[in-house]
């Protein structure tokens, strides 16, 4: 019987060793290198993912991804900064929907864990993994096979993580008039409470970028004037001023767009993204990021656009 138990333990150890080995190779050997001509990195969620066309905007790499909490953006941003010394500026989408308490579900909900953890687990630090385990141990355990499978898949793809960590993905649909009418007449619903885990990790991302002498700016992407999240403007501004008063905030939210430039009230479609990105590109080319009074330049440009 001892022989049986010994062999079972050996088999289990080999199995665990293979799984752990794949994980360690992904942790230490994965490639996060971006093109050296990209000095600006954009992080955030779907607002940024759908709007910032990095093929149009010079020097920018868009790594925003739909439904991504700052909790998961942190290990991605940290690794990108660490592995790419050429990055000078990190733009982080900071908008109304990211400060409300509901957004913490993007950290701990089953579907978010099973979607994010397989990609980010190898580059997450132990305290973050521990926090996630405390928040939803069942989902974390249930996702371990997916993490391991993804490690193996990434190994077969040469450990290049750049194609799987976000990017510009435009939407082709256009919001219909019924949805707009519905959004216009829907009562404004202010949401209570401030996000905790997400903002904690935003703090950490900002601190890490600064420790590496990378400039951090928050940006706000336009949403439709009937977007429900605009009801949270008061909370948003209070969080921004109280907690992130020392981080430059570039508000592009008032960029003029037609209804046909939106896929839904929260997201630009391809047409809107093109208009918005070309405008951003022109601002950057005219020296926006090197200027001292950036928001003033943006506001002036927006005023000119509105007067047309």
């Amino acid at each position, binding site marked *: *019987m001892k*022989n*049986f138990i010994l*062999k*079972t333990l050996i*088999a289990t150890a*080999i*199995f665990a060793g*293979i*799984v752990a080995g794949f994980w360690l190779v992904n942790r230490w050997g994965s490639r996060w290198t971006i093109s050296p001509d990209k000095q600006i990195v954009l992080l955030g969620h779907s607002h940024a993912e759908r709007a910032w066309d990095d093929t149009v905007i010079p020097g920018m790499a868009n790594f925003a991804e739909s439904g991504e909490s700052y909790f998961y953006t942190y290990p991605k941003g940290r690794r990108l900064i660490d592995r790419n010394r050429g990055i000078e500026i990190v733009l982080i989408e900071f908008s109304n929907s990211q400060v409300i308490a509901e957004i913490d579900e993007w950290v701990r909900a089953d579907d978010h864990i099973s979607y994010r953890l397989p990609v980010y687990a190898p580059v997450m630090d132990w305290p973050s993994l521990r926090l996630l385990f405390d928040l939803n141990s069942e989902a974390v*355990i*249930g996702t371990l*096979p997916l993490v*391991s*499978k993804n490690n*193996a898949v990434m190994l077969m793809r040469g450990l290049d993580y750049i194609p799987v960590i976000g990017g510009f993905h435009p939407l082709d649909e256009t919001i219909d008039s019924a949805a707009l009418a519905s959004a216009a007449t829907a009562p404004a619903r202010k949401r209570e409470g401030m996000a905790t885990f997400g903002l904690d990790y935003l703090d950490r991302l900002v601190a890490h970028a600064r420790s590496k002498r990378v400039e951090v700016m928050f940006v706000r992407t336009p949403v439709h004037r009937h977007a429900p999240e605009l009801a949270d403007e008061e909370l948003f501004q209070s969080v921004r001023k109280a907690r992130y008063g020392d981080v430059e905030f570039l508000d592009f939210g008032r960029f003029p767009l037609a209804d046909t430039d939106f896929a839904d009230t929260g997201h630009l479609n391809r047409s809107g993204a093109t208009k918005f990105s070309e405008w951003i590109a022109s601002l950057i080319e005219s020296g926006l990021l090197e200027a001292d009074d950036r928001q003033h330049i943006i506001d002036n440009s927006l005023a000119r656009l509105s007067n047309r």
Partner: protein
Amino acid sequence: MLFNSLDFAIFLPVVFLVYWFVLRKSVSLQNLFLVAASYVFYSFWDWRFLALIVISTAMDYGLGLAIGKTDGRRRRRALLLVSVVVNLGFLVFFKYYNFFLENFREAFTVFGYQLNAHTLDIILPVGISFYTFQTLSYTIDVYRGQLRPTRDFIAFSAFVSFFPQLAAGPIERAGNFLPQFLAPRTFDYSKAVDGARQMLWGLFKKVVIADNCAEFANTIFNGSDGYGGSTLVLGAVLFAFQIYGDFSGYSDMAIGMARLFGFSLRANFAFPYFSRDIAEFWRRWHISLTTWFRDYIYIPLGGSRDGIWKSVRNTFIIFLVSGFWHGANWTFIAWGALNAVWFMPLLLSRRNRRNVGTIAQGRMLPSFREFLSMAATFSLTVLTWIFFRAESIRHAWDYICGIFSNRLFSMPEVHPDKSIAVLIALFFVVEWIGRADLHPLETLALRWRRVFRWGLYLAIALSIFWFGGREQEFIYFQF
């Protein structure tokens, strides 16, 4: 507690170590521990239904002793009747009460009467169909004089509640299984290793094949109105893989696990999808239930002894009862009836025992004729499974009509991704190679060098870990 759960991954090694290291010198203590472990295992579903197992166990233990002591035929029969009525009474109440009530109510409505009876919100106790038949076999065998009643209540309790096969079989016979609880057990290395291999293959069948097929089969069956013929065919085929992987996977794990504890359970599946006719399929599918019905219903009814028409009648009875055993729905009865219909040509032409041995014995591939027979049998089986899986007879009928309505020769709209399709193909290859054995890993790779053999086992284990579908409960738990 599911075999493919983290709870069980902790539970099994603990039980194994205590059983062999702490209690190996005492059969009684081992049995007592198995009873306790089995009750804990069952309590993970619903501890309240443990009472049913305890009542069935105590009653049949007592009735077995009473039948053994009694000489009078009438009194023995009365005691047996108590066992049958109480055991089947539980089964009927928990499984069929609402079904009978609803059908009575509808029947009364047809004749213009309103039956004021309400259905109950009854939970079906897991495994009730299995342990009820297992414990019934004991009293029947004692009544028939084929088995001496046991005085060892703990051993009898362990026989009824043995956790590897408590929830979904195989349904063991007291004559084979009970004596194993009475005799001292020693750890047999080769049996344990083979048991572990069988468990590994069973887990692969359940987690990789059945659970992945289930996701697509469920999608297709639940939205069958909107899919074309080819998708519906694929849905039915995937369900065939699902139910085979699910149930035979569970059986493999149960049998393998039993071997770890020094027990031998009878085979429950023998590669049924390689059958050349329906009769062979039924000798290879859910063997423990089929033989139970054969020994306790078919043969007492006269079997095939009293002419062809009685044989036809008895065959229909068996298949209808088998269908009804699976669930309180007309779909299961239709499924049983269809199987009986497919069986009839073989029975009437006395060719139902034509294909008894292993297909393509000693050859790598089947002959063209064997292949056609196998494909035809599989097609009939898949068609019949539609009734088994459908929510209602109407659903099944619409599903079949949908297959032939349109887009039968177009690409399916829903299908598993390539990696799952490859794993299903590999699964069939391995099953084909091992079709003459009790399970495919019994002899496969045994002559390989150790490094390759272990490599195969690791590849299977990694496939389970990586490609396991969304955790689904075993289908047969609902029966």
